[in-house]
C-alpha cells in the first residue's frame, strides 16, 4: 500500500555506505527476561490461586460454577479495557461508574417511553459516548488534569441519574437485555463473558499491533515528544475518553439486563475496582507501559479470588481487603526488591 514511499526513502541515499557492522533486530531470547515480566508473575499468581481454590473448595472445579463466576467481573472488565489505554496515556477516568449509572437511567427512560429493545443498546452507547466526550473535552480543551475533571463529572453524572430516578427504580426491561445480561451461549458460556473476550481481543489487536496502539504508547511515554513527532495528542485523548464512555454504556446495557433494574446506587464503587484491575494488570500509573494480556490476567485472577470467596460464603467486603492488599503488594514488591540496589 504505502510501502513504495518507504522504500523510496531508503533508495534516495546517494552515497553507498557499507556499514562496519549490522545492527541486530532484537536480543536473543532469554528465559530470565520472560520470567521477570509482570505478566508472567501474574500468570503464576493466577495458577497458584486456582490450585489453592480447587483444593480448598469442593465446588470450585464445577464447570457451571466457574462459568457463573465470570458474571461478577465481565462488565467491570469491559470498562477496564479502555481504562487501561487511558492510563497508558497518563490520564484517568474516575467517573466511569457515574457514566454507567446515567446510561442505565437513560435506557430506563427510553424503555419507559416505548423504545424498542434494540434501540436501548444504542441509547446506552450514545449516552456513554456523550459523557466521555464531556470528560475529554474538558481535559483537552482547557488542559485540566483528568483526575480533577472526572471527580467533578462523577458527581454530575450520578447526580443527573439521581435526579431522573428520584427514589424509584426502573424495572421491567425487555427480554433482549435479560438474554444478553444473564444468558448463555451453548447453555454454558455466559454471553457477557463472550462479549468481554471479543472486546479484549479487539483492544489487544488495536493496542499491540496497530499504529494507533503504537502512538498511544508514545503519548504515554512522553506527550511532548509525541506532539513533536506529529501525533495529534489531544485528539487521541478525546477519543479514548469517548471510547471509555461508550464501553461504560455497553457495560450498563449488560449489567442492567443482568440485575433487571436501575437503582440510584447501581455500580457503586466500581471505578476503584476497575482501576485496581488495570494497575494490577501491570499498567503503570506513570503511563507508557502495560498490556491487555496483563489486564485480562488481573481480571481473571481477581475473578477467581472473588468467586472462591463467594463459594466459601465469605462476605464480599472481605474481597475489598484482599484486592487492596494485592494492589499494594504488587506495586511495593518491585520497589522493595530494587530498593536495595539503587544508587541515587
Amino acid at each position: 500500500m504505502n510501502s513504495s514511499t518507504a522504500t523510496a526513502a531508503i533508495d534516495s541515499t546517494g552515497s553507498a555506505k557499507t556499514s562496519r557492522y549490522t545492527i541486530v533486530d532484537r536480543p536473543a531470547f532469554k528465559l530470565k527476561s520472560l520470567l521477570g515480566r509482570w505478566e508472567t508473575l501474574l500468570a503464576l499468581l493466577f495458577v497458584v490461586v486456582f490450585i489453592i481454590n480447587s483444593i480448598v473448595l469442593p465446588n470450585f472445579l464445577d464447570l457451571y460454577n466457574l462459568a457463573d463466576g465470570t458474571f461478577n467481573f465481565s462488565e467491570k472488565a469491559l470498562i477496564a479495557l479502555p481504562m487501561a489505554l487511558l492510563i497508558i496515556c497518563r490520564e484517568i477516568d474516575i467517573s466511569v461508574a457515574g457514566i454507567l449509572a446515567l446510561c442505565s437511567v437513560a435506557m430506563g427512560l427510553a424503555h419507559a417511553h416505548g423504545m424498542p429493545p434494540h434501540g436501548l443498546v444504542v441509547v446506552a452507547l450514545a449516552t456513554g459516548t456523550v459523557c466521555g466526550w464531556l470528560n475529554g473535552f474538558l481535559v483537552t480543551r482547557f488542559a485540566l488534569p483528568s483526575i480533577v475533571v472526572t471527580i467533578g463529572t462523577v458527581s454530575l453524572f450520578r447526580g443527573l441519574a439521581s435526579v431522573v430516578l428520584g427514589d424509584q427504580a426502573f424495572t421491567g426491561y425487555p427480554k433482549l437485555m435479560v438474554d444478553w445480561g444473564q444468558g448463555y451461549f451453548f447453555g454454558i458460556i455466559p454471553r457477557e463473558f463472550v462479549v468481554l473476550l471479543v472486546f479484549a481481543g479487539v483492544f489487544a489487536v488495536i493496542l499491540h499491533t496497530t499504529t494507533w496502539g503504537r502512538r498511544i504508547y508514545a503519548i504515554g511515554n512522553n506527550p511532548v515528544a509525541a506532539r513533536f513527532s506529529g501525533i495529534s495528542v489531544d485528539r487521541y485523548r478525546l477519543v479514548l475518553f469517548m471510547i471509555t464512555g461508550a464501553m461504560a454504556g455497553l457495560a450498563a446495557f449488560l449489567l442492567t439486563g443482568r440485575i433487571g433494574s436501575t437503582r440510584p446506587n447501581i455500580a457503586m464503587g466500581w471505578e476503584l475496582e476497575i482501576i485496581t484491575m488495570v494497575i494490577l494488570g501491570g499498567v503503570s500509573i506513570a503511563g507508557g507501559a502495560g498490556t491487555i494480556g496483563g489486564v485480562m490476567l488481573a481480571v481473571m485472577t481477581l475473578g477467581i479470588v472473588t468467586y472462591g470467596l463467594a463459594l466459601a460464603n465469605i462476605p464480599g467486603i472481605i474481597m475489598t481487603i484482599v484486592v487492596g492488599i494485592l494492589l499494594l503488594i504488587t506495586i511495593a514488591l518491585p520497589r522493595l526488591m530494587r530498593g536495595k540496589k539503587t544508587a541515587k
Partner: protein
Amino acid sequence: MLVTQVPTPPPVLQLSGICKRFSGVIALNDVALTIRAGEVMALIGENGAGKSTLVKTLTGIYQPDGGTIHLGGQAVKFTSPQEAMRAGITAVHQETVMFDELTVAENIYIGRQPTKGFPPRIDWELIESEAEKLFARLEVNLPVRARVKDLSVAQRHFVEIARALSQDARVVIMDEPTASLSQREIHELYRIIGQLRAAGTAVIFISHKFDEIFTVADRYTVLRDGCFVAEGALCDITETDLVSLMVGRAIHQTFPKLDVDIGTPLLEVESLCHPTEFDQVSFTLRQAEIVGFYGLVGAGRSEVMQALFGLSSNVTGTIKLNGQAITINSPNDAIAHGIAYVPEDRQHQGAHLSLPILHNITLPILSRIGFFLRGRRLQENAIARHFSEQLELKCSYLTQNVSELSGGNQQKVVLGKWLATNPKVIILDEPTKGIDIGSKAAVHRFISELVGRGLSVILVSSELPEVLGMADRVVVMHQGHIKKVFARAQATPENVVAAASGSELPSEEAAA
C-alpha cells in the same frame, strides 16, 4: 618596572587527580584545579570536556572515583549538595534551582529558615530584612516579597548569588551565567563578581564567550576530553592560544564543508509574527543551502522554528514552498510538506527514552508503513536499520531502549527518525548541544552529506564556531527580531556576536 614579591595566599580550593567514570565512559581523568581567595578562575572547555561533571563533583552531586579535594587546606569529602553548601561551595546554575511559587526571600533561606521564640516559629521579618541587606550589598534592586516565577532570568541569577552569599560561600561557581542576559544585566553581573572578589570569595566562571572571560577572570583552567590541559593567568595568553588549547586542533578542520551547488529558493518565510515571541520574521532558504540561525539564548529562534513546524498557534504570516503558499497548522502538515524539526531538548522533546530505538525511528512515518504493523515488521525493521547504520548508531540491538544510549547516540536516533520522513527541509535546533566531540564531528559531517544529497538545512545554534563553520548564510536574531543576515564571507565572529547582542557597532564587543 619594579617587580615586587607579593606572598601568594594559600589556595581556597585545590583539586588534584580527580577521576570520575560513568559505566565505562571516563568523564574526568586526573583533573587538577587550584583557586585562591578573591580570584576569578575561568573554567574553559568545549561541550563534553567535563566542565559540568567537574562542577557536580565540586558541589557534592557526584562523588569522585579518585583524587582529593582540599578546601582551605583541609581535605574534604562531600556526599551531598548540602554538605558542599555548608562547607562554602555553592553553584549558580544555568537552570536556577528555584521554587517558583515561593518568594525571593524564602528562596534564599529555603531549608534553613531561622526561627525564634517558643514554640519555634519561622522569623519572617528576619528573613526579609536579611534578604534586603544582601541585595543592598549587591546593589541590586529586587523586591524580596516578589514570587520567583515573576522574575527574569537575570534576577533569578541574582537571587542565587544572594543565596550563595548568605551561606558565606567561599567558592561560587557560575555556569554560563550570561546566557540570555541583556548587556546591562551582564555588566551588573560583572560588578557583582567584582564585589565577590573584593570580599575574598573565589569565583569559578564557566563560559564560552571569550570577551567575557577576558573581562572578568584572572586565571584560566582548560579541560579537554575530561583531562586537564593547562592553567595560567589570562594576561599571559591570547584568545587564539586558548582556543587551540581547548580544541587541540585548528578550528577549520572540524567543519567539513563540501562545495555544493546551491539552488533556487525552496522555502520562503514572509512576515511571520507571533504576539509575544517574535515579530516580522522573513527569510529564504534555498535548495541544498545551510542557513545558520544564531542568537543569544532566548532570542526566539526555537520559537520561530516551532512555529514553522506547526507547534504554535496565533502565528500569522506566509510560508511558501517552491513558490506555493502552504498552511501549516500542525506538525503533521509540516511533515506532509517535507519539513522536519529536530528539537533542542533531546530528552523531553526529541526522543521517547523508554521506548525502543525501532519505535522511535518509525514513529512519524507509521502511517506510511501501514495500519497493521505486526505484519510489516520486516519492513519497519529495515527502515530503522537503514537509518541507524547510515548514522553509525552504536547500539546493541534495535529493540534497545533509547535511554541506554549515550547522548550522542540518542541524538542520532532523533536525527534518524526525522530523516526517515524523507524531508526536503530539515531544521536542526542545537544538534550538537551537550554531546561528545566525536559525535559532534560526525553530526557535522552528516549535515554536509545531507546538503550534498539535496536537502536544505536550517541550523539553529548558539555555538559561534559551529555556525560560522557550517552555514552558507547566517541569520542573527535578537529579542524576537531578525537583526541581520550575513553571507558566509561577511560573517565574522565580531559582526555576528555584535548583532546577536543587539548592538550596532561591531567594535563595541571587542574585549577591553
